[in-house]
C-alpha cells in the first residue's frame, strides 16, 4: 500500500500499468499515464481502441485486471465509483429526464447533503459558468443537444470532482457547435482548475481542449506527450493519419519532399494538406489534376514530379485549373518526419 501522500500528489491522477478485460478479452493493456493537478489529458483513439473502457476503469465502473489507478496519491482499488471523486460525463449527457436543469445540476450537491441555500448559490454559479443562467426550471427534454451537454458539464463540475472524466463530450453535436463548445470547454476547465481526462476520436477536440495527449490504438498507448509534441512528431504513419495529416510519403517521394523543405532525408514524412503551396515559386513542380474552392484557399490535387499525386493549396484568386503547370513551395512546419517504417 502506498501511503497517501496527499500534499505531494494533490489533484494528480496517475495510471500505472493499467489493464482491463471484457468478458475475458483484453481491451486495455499496459497503460501508464500521469495527469498533473489541473491538467487536461486527451486520450485520442479510433473507436474500439479501448479509450472509453479505460475511462470507465478510472471511474470504477469496470474492474481493473492489472495495474492501479491513483488519485491524490491514493490507490483507488476497492473504492466504489461514488466514493472516488471522479465525475464522469457521457457523450449524450445522461441527464435525469424527470429532474429540472437546476435539480440535475444540484444533484451531486444534494447527494452530499449540502444546505439548500448553498445548493441554490452553486447551481446559479455553475449555470452561469456554462452560459445557461435562465434555464433552472426547464426539463432536459426541452433542451437542445448543446444545452444538454452544458448542463451535464455543470452537473459534473457541481460534484466538485478531484478528476473530471469526459467521454466524447462534444461528438454528439454538430460541427459549428462543437467548435464553439470546445473553446468554451477549455475556458471552463481552466477556470475550474480540475484535473481532467477527455476521451475522444476527434483530434480537433483534443487540440482545442487538452494540454497533453495520449494516442491509443488496440488497447495500448502508442504515444504520449504535450499536444504540440505529439502533433509535431507522430510516432508512426497510422498515428499521423489519425492526427489529421493528409498523407504519409515513403521512400523517394519522402526524400523529394524533405529535400524541398530543406530537411534531412532518410525517413518517412507525414504531410498536411497545406504543407505544399502552389501559386508562387518553389523547388517542386507538377501538373494540376483537380481544383476546388474552399473557404480560405484553393484546394488542389497536383501530380508532382518525383512524388506522385498529392494535395496542395493555392491562394484564392490564383485561377488554377486542371492541366496547369505549377511550382510548389514546401512549409517545413507542416511536415512531420517519421522513423522509417
Amino acid at each position, binding site marked *: 500500500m502506498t501511503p497517501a501522500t496527499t500534499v505531494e500528489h494533490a489533484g494528480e491522477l496517475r495510471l500505472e500499468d493499467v489493464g482491463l*478485460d*471484457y*468478458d*475475458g478479452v483484453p481491451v486495455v493493456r499496459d497503460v501508464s499515464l500521469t495527469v498533473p493537478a489541473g491538467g487536461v489529458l486527451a486520450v485520442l483513439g479510433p473507436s474500439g481502441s479501448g479509450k472509453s473502457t479505460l475511462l*470507465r476503469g478510472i*471511474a*470504477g*465502473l469496470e*474492474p*481493473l*485486471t*492489472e495495474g492501479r489507478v491513483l488519485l491524490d496519491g491514493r490507490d483507488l482499488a476497492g473504492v*466504489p*465509483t*461514488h*466514493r*472516488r*471523486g*471522479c*465525475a*464522469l*460525463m*457521457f457523450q449524450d449527457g*445522461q441527464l*435525469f*429526464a*424527470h*429532474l429540472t436543469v437546476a*435539480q440535475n445540476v444540484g*444533484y*451531486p450537491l444534494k*447527494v*452530499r447533503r449540502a444546505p439548500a441555500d448553498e445548493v441554490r448559490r452553486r447551481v446559479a454559479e455553475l449555470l452561469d459558468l456554462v452560459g445557461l443562467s435562465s434555464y433552472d426550471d426547464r426539463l432536459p*427534454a426541452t433542451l437542445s443537444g448543446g444545452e444538454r451537454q452544458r448542463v451535464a458539464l455543470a*452537473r*459534473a463540475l*457541481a*460534484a466538485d470532482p478531484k478528476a473530471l*472524466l469526459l467521454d466524447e463530450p462534444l461528438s454528439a453535436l454538430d460541427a459549428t457547435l462543437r467548435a464553439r463548445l470546445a473553446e468554451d470547454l477549455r475556458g471552463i476547465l481552466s477556470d475550474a482548475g480540475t484535473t481532467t481526462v477527455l476521451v475522444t476520436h476527434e483530434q480537433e477536440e483534443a487540440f482545442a481542449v487538452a494540454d497533453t495527449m495520449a494516442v491509443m490504438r488496440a488497447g495500448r498507448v502508442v504515444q504520449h506527450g504535450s499536444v504540440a509534441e505529439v502533433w509535431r512528431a507522430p510516432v508512426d504513419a497510422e498515428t499521423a493519419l489519425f492526427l489529421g495529416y493528409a498523407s504519409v510519403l515513403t521512400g523517394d517521394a519522402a526524400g523529394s519532399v524533405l529535400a524541398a523543405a530543406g530537411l534531412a532525408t532518410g525517413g518517412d514524412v507525414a504531410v498536411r494538406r497545406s504543407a505544399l503551396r502552389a501559386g508562387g515559386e518553389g523547388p517542386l513542380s507538377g501538373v494540376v489534376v483537380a481544383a476546388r474552392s474552399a473557404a480560405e484557399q484553393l484546394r488542389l490535387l497536383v501530380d508532382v514530379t518525383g512524388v506522385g499525386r498529392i494535395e496542395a493549396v493555392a491562394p484564392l484568386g490564383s485561377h488554377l485549373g486542371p492541366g496547369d503547370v505549377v511550382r510548389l513551395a514546401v512549409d517545413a512546419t507542416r511536415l512531420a518526419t517519421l522513423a522509417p517504417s
Partner: protein
Amino acid sequence: MRSRAEGARLLTLLGLAALPLVVLGVFFVLPVSGMLARGLWPDGSLDLAGVVEVFGRPRVHRVLWFTLWSAGLGTLLSVLLGLPVAHLLYRRRFPGRGALRAALLVPFVLPTVVVGVAFRRLLATGGPLGGLGLDGSAAAIVAALVFFNVAVVVRAVGSTWESLDPRPAEAAAALGASPRQVLWTVTLPALRPAVVSAASVVFLFCATAFGVVLTLGGLRYSTVETEIYLLTTNLLDLQAAAALALLQLVVVVALLLVTQRLRRTADPAREHRVGHAPQLGRRDLPAVLVSLVPLALVVVPLAGLVVGSVRVEGEWSLAAYRALTRPTAVLPATVQDALVTSLRTAVDATWMSLLLGLLVAAVVTRRSRSRAERRTRALLDGLFMLPLGVSAVMVGFGFLITLDRPPLDLRDSPLLVPIAQALVALPLVVRTLAPALGGIDDRQRQAAASLGAPPWRVALTVDLPVVWRPLLAAAGFAFAVSLGEFGATSFLVREDHPTLPVVIYRLLGRPGDLNAEMALAASVVLAATTAVVMLAVERLRVRSLGAW
C-alpha cells in the same frame, strides 16, 4: 485477478437474490420436493416404473393435450384481445379510462366458485345466453380463461406501452409508414418483451387454472391441474400426482426456455419516456370495436353478478346485503370483518411480493459482464416463475408435511398465507417490473454513481422514477392475487378470522334463504373493493413524477 472481480460481481448478484431465494426455497422448493418425494419414493425406494406407468395412461395423454391446447388458445386470445385494450387504456385519453382499467382487474379477485356460478347462470339453458349452447363446452372454459387473464396482458403490456418512446413510431410515420405498418414494424417489436412476458404468465395461469375448469367443464374436461387436485385431495394417489407434477415442471421449463429466447431484444437500452396520450379519436375505431369483445366478456358476467345479488325471489331487494352485516350461525363472519381480514392479508402479501419482486427484477435485468453471469441471471429469472406453473395443491399439501418441525415449524404461522400469495404474485410483479428496469440505460446509473451517489441513492434517482408506474401496476396485481385467494393458500390452514372468499364458499355450500344471493352480494363487495383500490392506484399513477 480477473476471476476475482468476476467472482465479486456474481457474489453481489447472489447477495441481492438471497432473500428471494430463501423465501422461494422454504415456501416453494421444499414443500414441492416433499410432495414429489412422497410420490416418487412411496416406500422409501425410488419407484420409476410406477411413474412411467402413469405417463402411459391414455387418460393422462388426453388431459395433457387438453391442458396444452386450452391454455394455448386462452393465452392467444388473451393477447389478441388484450393488445387493443391496452392501446386504448394506456395510449389514449377518454373519460372513464381509470374506471375501466380498474374494472378489468376485478375478475382476478373473484373466487372461482362465484365466477362459475356467474358464468353458468348466463350460459345455462335457462340463462340469458343459454341459446348459445356454450354451457359445459370447451369454449366456455376458454372464455373464462380469457375473462380471468385479459387483465394480465392489458396491465403488463399497457404499462410498457405507456412509457414507450413515441419518436421511433413518429419517425416511421414520417418515412411513409401507414399506422398499421408503424404498428407492425416499430411498436409491436418494441413491445415484444412485454408481450412475451405477459403471455408466458398468462399461459401458466391458464394451464394451472382448476376451479374454473372444474366448474365450467362440468367434469367433461380435465387439465393436469384438476387431475392433480383430484388425485391428491380425493384419491390420495400421490404417485400419480407426483408424476403429473413432474410433467408440469417439464412444460414450465420448456416454456421458460422458449420465452427467454423470444424476449431477447437487439436494443435493451431503449429510452423510455411518457408521451402525452392523445384523446380517443375516429382512427381508434377498429381498436375500440375489437376491445368491445373482451370488455363485454368481463362486464357481462360482472353485471350478472350484481343483478343476481339484488334479485331476491324475483324482486329487487338489498336484503342480501343487509343479511351480510348481521352475524348468524351460518355466516362465519360479517362481511365487514371478513373484508378487513382480506385486506390485511392482501396488504402483507403485496408488500412482500413487491420487495421480493424488486430484488429479483433488479437482479435479472442488470447488464451481465460474462456468459456465466448471464446464465446465472437467466436461471434465477426462470426459477421465480415456477410457483405459477406448479400445482397449488402440491404446494399447499407440501407445506403441511415439510414445514412441521423446527427450525421451519411454520405451518401455523399467520404469515404463511401472505407469503404463499406473495410467491404466486411474484412472477407477475417481476414480469411487470423487469421490462421497465431493463429499459433503463445503465449509463444513467453510472452517471449518478460518478456524481457521488451511493447505490441506494442511484436506485432512488434512476430506477425508481422509471419503475414507479410499473410498480403500482404490480402492486395492483399482487393485491388482487391475494384478495382472490389464489392457489396454494386455499389449501392452507386458517385462523378463526375468515376472509371474504371463505365466507363466499361457505354461503354457496348449502341451501338456504338468501344463501346464493348473499354469496353474490359478498362477491360484489369483494369486486367493488378491488375496483376502489385499483382506482386509487390509478390516481397515484397519474401523479407519479416524484422528485427524489
